[in-house]
């Protein structure tokens, strides 16, 4: 029997994960040692810790070996995964900024809140590098389980309990389906590694493979709230504490997409005949139904939830053009979507602090008494619509380019769907802008809304990212495009 050989670890490549795990421990211990005095600093510690984990990502991105492989290709750190890790960490940082006042002023358990938030981010960063089924599944559970509980964090609010419960039940159901699909793929290929599975299912098809691929796609469709598996999303988004909603709508959804990117890009791309119809139907349904329901919403948070479903459709579409730069387009879209959506949530939270509601009608005449917030929200809404040079226009361009270049039948149909739905979406996004600029302010609303510093900062980060990446998307495209020779990458160091 061969003796056990310890694996070689590239500690530099794992440094961001180590920092995040350290932050989780520090937050826990602070609460134990400082008791009530911890409340004042846990938010700052969580924020600083997240920023600290960006340092190793920067040193990795600028190092001589941008691509590092561990465990025989099961764990890969390359420019795309670094970009995605940075996306998760910066999004979480903005969510911490959004939470500082909201969680501090409400009746919440604070240090546990940040502990769960950071552990969820740890799951996301692992997901960005995971290249085998077990790592992907475990990372998915680590990022979901804290999110289920955060959705129910406002314990005395029945709607928050409902949000957490619905999200949990749907999420577990999806995990079960996903796991069954994974077991079928593993049973057929005899390996948990995505590249090996791709080779095995690419050589020969069988009903078990078809079923496995469909189950895996359905499992992830729940996670990214694609129609018809979107039922949980609007209720969960409305009931959960608003910063948690922002986290779910941006980081959690992005992580679902990252998992899809790994599974489809590494393995299922060799089984296009099964994968394309499933993804195409999911994408077309999500875009159209998400948009049609968003049209009728009167609450901004619910509108953002349904528009998020429609945006998920835009991001699913390029998977049918995976071999023509579709995956890069999804990564680009994800980054821009995160910046825009977090910004929109930050402004809505700032306004809701005063109006105590997120009804669209309560936004009337916002420009007359709080012009800064009105302009900021208008920028984010215009970015959602895809007006150049604001953020998402470049994402939409990349998606369309990938779809049209692939020239497939499904891709062409989806390109038409994307164009039509962009037009539908413009109506309800700009409707909110119209309410803010032209409608009358409610009685007694004349003093400008006071925005706390942390929220101001969050809006600022999102604004800068939305505008800068829209005007100059070059670096984003470079980071999202993987190097040409993944097979010849040096292993370890």
């Amino acid at each position, binding site marked *: *029997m061969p003796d056990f050989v310890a694996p070689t*670890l590239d500690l530099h490549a794992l440094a961001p994960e180590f920092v995040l795990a350290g932050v989780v421990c520090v937050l826990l211990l602070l609460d134990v040692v400082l008791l009530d005095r911890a409340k004042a600093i846990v938010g700052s510690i969580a924020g600083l810790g997240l920023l600290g984990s960006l340092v190793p990502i920067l040193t990795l991105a600028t190092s001589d070996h941008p691509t590092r492989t561990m*465990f025989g290709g099961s764990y890969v750190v390359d420019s795309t995964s670094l970009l995605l890790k940075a996306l998760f960490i910066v999004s979480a940082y903005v969510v911490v900024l959004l939470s500082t006042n909201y969680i501090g002023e409400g009746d919440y358990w604070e240090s546990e809140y940040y502990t769960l938030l950071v552990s*969820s981010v740890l799951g996301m960063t692992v997901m960005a590098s995971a290249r085998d089924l*077990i790592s992907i599944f*475990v990372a998915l*559970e*680590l990022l979901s389980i804290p999110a289920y509980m955060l959705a*129910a964090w406002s314990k005395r609010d029945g709607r928050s309990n409902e949000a957490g419960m619905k999200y949990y039940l749907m999420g577990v159901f999806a995990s079960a389906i996903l796991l069954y699909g994974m077991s079928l793929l593993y049973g057929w290929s005899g390996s948990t590694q995505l590249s090996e599975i791709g080779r095995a299912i690419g050589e020969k098809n*069988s009903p078990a493979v078809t079923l496995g691929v469909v189950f895996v796609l359905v499992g992830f469709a729940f996670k990214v709230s694609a129609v018809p598996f979107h039922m949980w999303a609007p209720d969960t988004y409305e009931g959960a504490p608003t910063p948690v909603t922002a986290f779910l709508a941006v980081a959690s959804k992005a992580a679902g997409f990252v998992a899809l990117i790994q599974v489809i890009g590494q393995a299922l791309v060799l089984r296009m005949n099964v994968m394309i119809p499933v993804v195409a139907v999911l994408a077309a349904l999500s875009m159209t139904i998400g948009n049609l329901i968003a049209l009728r919403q009167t609450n901004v948070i619910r509108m953002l939830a349904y528009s998020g479903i429609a945006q998920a459709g835009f991001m699913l579409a390029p998977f049918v053009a995976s071999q023509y730069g579709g995956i890069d387009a999804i990564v680009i879209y994800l980054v821009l979507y995160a910046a825009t959506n977090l910004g929109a949530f930050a402004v809505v939270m700032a306004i809701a602090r005063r109006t105590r509601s997120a009804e669209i009608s309560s936004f009337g005449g916002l420009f007359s008494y709080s012009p800064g917030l009105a302009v900021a929200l208008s920028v984010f809404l215009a970015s959602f619509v895809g007006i150049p040079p604001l953020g998402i226009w470049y994402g939409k361009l990349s998606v369309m380019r990938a779809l049209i270049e692939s020239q497939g039948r499904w891709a062409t149909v989806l390109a038409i769907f994307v164009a039509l739905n962009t037009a539908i979406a413009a109506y309800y996004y700009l409707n909110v802008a119209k309410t803010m600029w032209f409608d009358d302010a409610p009685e007694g609303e004349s003093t400008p809304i006071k925005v706390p510093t942390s929220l101001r900062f969050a809006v600022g980060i999102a604004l800068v990212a939305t505008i800068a990446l829209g005007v100059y998307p070059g670096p984003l495209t470079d980071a999202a495009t993987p190097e040409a020779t993944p097979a010849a990458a040096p292993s370890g160091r």
Partner: protein
Amino acid sequence: MIASLFAAQACAPSECFAVPANIAFGICALLMIGAAIKVVTETNIVHAALYLVVVLAGVGVNYLILQAEFLAVTQFLVYIGAIIVLFLFGIMLTRAPMGRSDDLDNAKLRPAGIGAAVMLLVVLGGALLSSFGETHLVFSTANSTTALSDAVFNQYLIPFEVVSVMLLAALIGAIVLARRD
């Protein structure tokens, strides 16, 4: 011990799966199917949980037949030792009805449920039979527990560590949500 008993009877890879193992599987499968149907149709929730024990134990026995003794022990410990006991505690410590409750069974939805179950059986069974029907199982002499532990601390080191953070997070969140304050 049971596993090694079956292993001694193993035939060559080209031949069939060992006869005693086949018989053991047949008995086990029948018991599991019967118990699984009772889990769904039983109107007393405590009885339903106890029938679930039979189903989960059957899975454990299947692992034993396949010579995965570590997996079998884990299955017994975790599912029967922990999860079912938790179910029963949950039923007894909350105000859930303990005896017969007729509203557990939804007669109107029964045809739909049976239809969905039969459809799933046909699709899954068909796919599995046509994909793996020709595959012969080979009994290995290697110690699967050793292989498993080697894999956990080598190839799957990162998921193993990630699971520990996940359990910690689940614990903290569950305490916060469950405690009375």
